[in-house]
């Protein structure tokens, strides 16, 4: 059984991928170190602070996981898209819609504890999926490229949600944010900023895996992703697969938004600047690429990414690295890590074109 497991991993070339990722980490860290040396900072001290802060103690680890939670979900959105042959970057906007839906269901409605939380979570998932409908309709009936439609809808969502926060769901005593989720609609705090919504995100990753690799619908989606020609030849309903992929993504993006409202202390809401959710969708793309568009990889990648986000402040605190530079260094590491994933994706695209 165990041997089978390892030979399985071997056959799936996991060791290749792991080695690639490992080299990528080294390249990224090296580039970041050079940048720090150029500005006269102690790179060793800074990296020690980064990783010790992010992973070296329970509190820090919990914080890291809290930053990883929404990224797991938005990365899944992108990964599902890639596996279906789509470049779905709509997670950002669908996540905004999910967040505002969670703020509405969590803050404006009152329900018994438990039910309220479940309802608010499902409500925001449905809202995210609903917001993804135009993307799938445009794609299926009009052949509109999903990159174009999602970019546009992301901005529509941004301003729509900002409007809703400012004028409709504004906290009457605190104009700078939407009304916070009621106590009955909050995930329980595990420690630091981590709540049990983390489990939900892990469950979502597991569920995504089972859908994609263990169900007929998932199999069809992946075939569509490999080659639409093959799919058509095999009688696979391509449009249905694309629609499922986009709507499934939308619901996960909605959940990502909800995770920041119902599952993140101490604010439990979304700010009018949307600063506490903005970019989570786009960061998910990077996380998905680092994680090779696979749920298991995504979980690891999101935790790594969350560690960079959280540990970055220790570089600033302990080694005095300017906060802007911290972001640049993290950017280097992430780009380096995403490159193998990007190659994967292009290789797949090339192969598909050759087939055609």
């Amino acid at each position: 059984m165990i041997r089978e497991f390892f030979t399985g991993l071997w056959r799936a070339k996991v060791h290749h991928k792991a080695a690639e990722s490992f080299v990528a980490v080294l390249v990224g860290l090296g580039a970041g170190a050079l940048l720090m040396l150029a500005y006269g900072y102690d790179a060793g001290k800074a990296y020690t602070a980064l990783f010790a802060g992010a992973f070296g103690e329970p509190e820090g680890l919990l914080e890291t996981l809290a930053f990883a939670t929404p990224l797991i979900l938005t990365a899944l959105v992108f990964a599902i898209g890639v596996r279906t042959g789509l470049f779905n970057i709509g997670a950002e906007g669908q996540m905004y819609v999910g967040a505002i839906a969670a703020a509405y269901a969590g803050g404006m409605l009152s329900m018994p504890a438990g039910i309220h939380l479940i309802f608010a979570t499902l409500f925001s998932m449905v809202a995210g999926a609903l917001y993804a409908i135009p993307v799938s309709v445009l794609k299926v009936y009009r052949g509109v490229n999903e990159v174009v439609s999602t970019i546009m809808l992301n901005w529509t969502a941004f301003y729509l949600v900002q409007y809703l926060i400012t004028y409709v769901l504004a906290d009457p005593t605190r104009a700078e944010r939407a009304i916070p989720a009621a106590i009955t609609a909050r995930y329980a705090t595990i420690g630091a900023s981590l709540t049990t919504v983390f489990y939900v995100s892990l469950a979502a990753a597991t569920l995504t895996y089972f859908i994609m690799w263990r169900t007929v619908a998932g199999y069809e989606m992946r075939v569509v992703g490999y080659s639409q020609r093959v799919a058509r030849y095999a009688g696979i309903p391509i449009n249905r697969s694309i629609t499922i992929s986009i709507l499934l993504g939308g619901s996960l993006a909605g959940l990502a938004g909800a995770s920041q409202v119902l599952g993140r202390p101490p604010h439990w809401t979304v700010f009018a600047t949307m600063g506490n959710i903005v970019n989570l969708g786009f960061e998910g793309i990077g996380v998905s690429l680092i994680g090779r568009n696979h749920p298991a990889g995504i979980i690891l990648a999101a935790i790594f990414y969350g560690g960079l986000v959280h540990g970055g402040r220790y570089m600033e605190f302990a080694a005095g690295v300017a906060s802007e530079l911290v972001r640049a260094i993290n950017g280097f590491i992430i780009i380096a890590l995403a490159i193998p994933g990007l190659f994967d994706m292009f290789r797949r695209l090339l192969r598909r074109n050759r087939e055609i």
Partner: protein
Amino acid sequence: MNRKGLTKLETALAALFVVALILAGVGWLQPVRESMQTITVTRTVTAGAQVERTITQTNVVTSTVTVEKPVSLGVFKIAVVSDIGGRGDLSFNDMAFKGGDEAVKDFGVQMVELISKTEADYVPNLETAAKDPNVNLIVGVGFLLSEALLQVARKYPDKNFAGIDTFTQALAVQQLGKPLPNMLDIVYEEHKGSAMVGALGCLVAAYHNEHGGNYPYIGGVFGIEIPVLWKFEIGYKWGCDWGLKWYEQRFGKRAPLIGEDGRYGSGPGWSEGLYCPVGKGCWYKGRVLWTYTGTFSDITKGYAAAKPMYEQGAVAVYNIAGPLGLGINQAVQEIASEKKLQSGPPYWIGVDANQDWINPGFIIASMMKRVDRGVYYATLLTVIGKFKEVVAEYNGVLTLGVGTRVGRLEMEGISVSTLEDLNEFIQMGVNAEKLTGRKVLPMPPEEIRKNVAEMRNKLPSWVWDALTELESKIRSGQVEVPMVLTKDAVDSWRELLG
């Protein structure tokens, strides 16, 4: 293979899931242990009080009053956690870091900075600072950090926490029933400062009207209508009224145009340009044009609000919306370049920092809210070991204003900008230029100083006399500026002042 139980990836996933659960399980245990620690620590604190050497309860009382900790610091750090404005905002956050820098210079402490990029950074940033054993004081800058401060200050009862403009203690009372012993909200008497610049604005209008100007109004551009801003609004309007009444007394006549005209209202209660409702005295109603723009970030709305005010004859517009001041400045600049003016009128009035340097000669003065002083005083109290004592004495809320004192220490936080403190703020602009690489200062520092001084000297000395008088009367308590916090109060004052 598909039907033979779990595949390798599923196994990997399941293993991961288990690991995650275990990790999370550790997390479940962690806070429990933590909170037990918290309880014991609090107990020792209350039993042993602030001075470590005390043995009995009676000793505590006598010794804490008289004994000040000797300043033997070693590694003594303060941490300043910014809000999302970050460094280089030329206002709130830069002021806080400036206060920290001064504390470093004066007390020999070290300062560490943590810049929050998003709202999700507040708690981890505060915690990062609190976890460092050498950090004794953590300052959160801006009311956005209120909740985060509550959460972290509760968890680290042996560390001192201060918040600028925060309402953490109000939240603590709401949620825990009592204020935290280690948390100090530092707030400001903005209404007093607003009254001073309101008086200044209306007297400047009077002066220019004496010399043939046509300035029947002053203006105010506000941000989002939140209760905090009512303090500014009513203070400003009240100040204008005070200024015009001062003019009446000083010169034995109404201020030209702005003091006498009949355009401000008519009908019941009105007599000769004054509004005199029965039993409430007479007021210079309607002299202030005001708009709530509904934003603290959209600079174009500042321009859109200020432009018509200047067209209607506002001599100056007060900026109470942070960056929207740049929009007001744009409106002023347009008029200035159209008429080829070297200095106002029209003017505008700055807020928070000394903004006089932004467009020298066109800003009468700024209502300064000394965030830097707040950080400085919090450090001072920590260094001399009086922090928790002050928290206890003031229920955790320290109000800095005009003539405010804490014990023997003068702790002021509100003032109208002067030529003397212009230099520090020009320096802030110089630093921001270095930091961002963008041009911030409109002209070389010497020229700024020259222009501001020229503008100030052009105004008659009685304008500045009036300001000094108002300030000293506020300080001595002879006049009381209304502090408006409720909807009812703001409505009744708007009835009197427009």
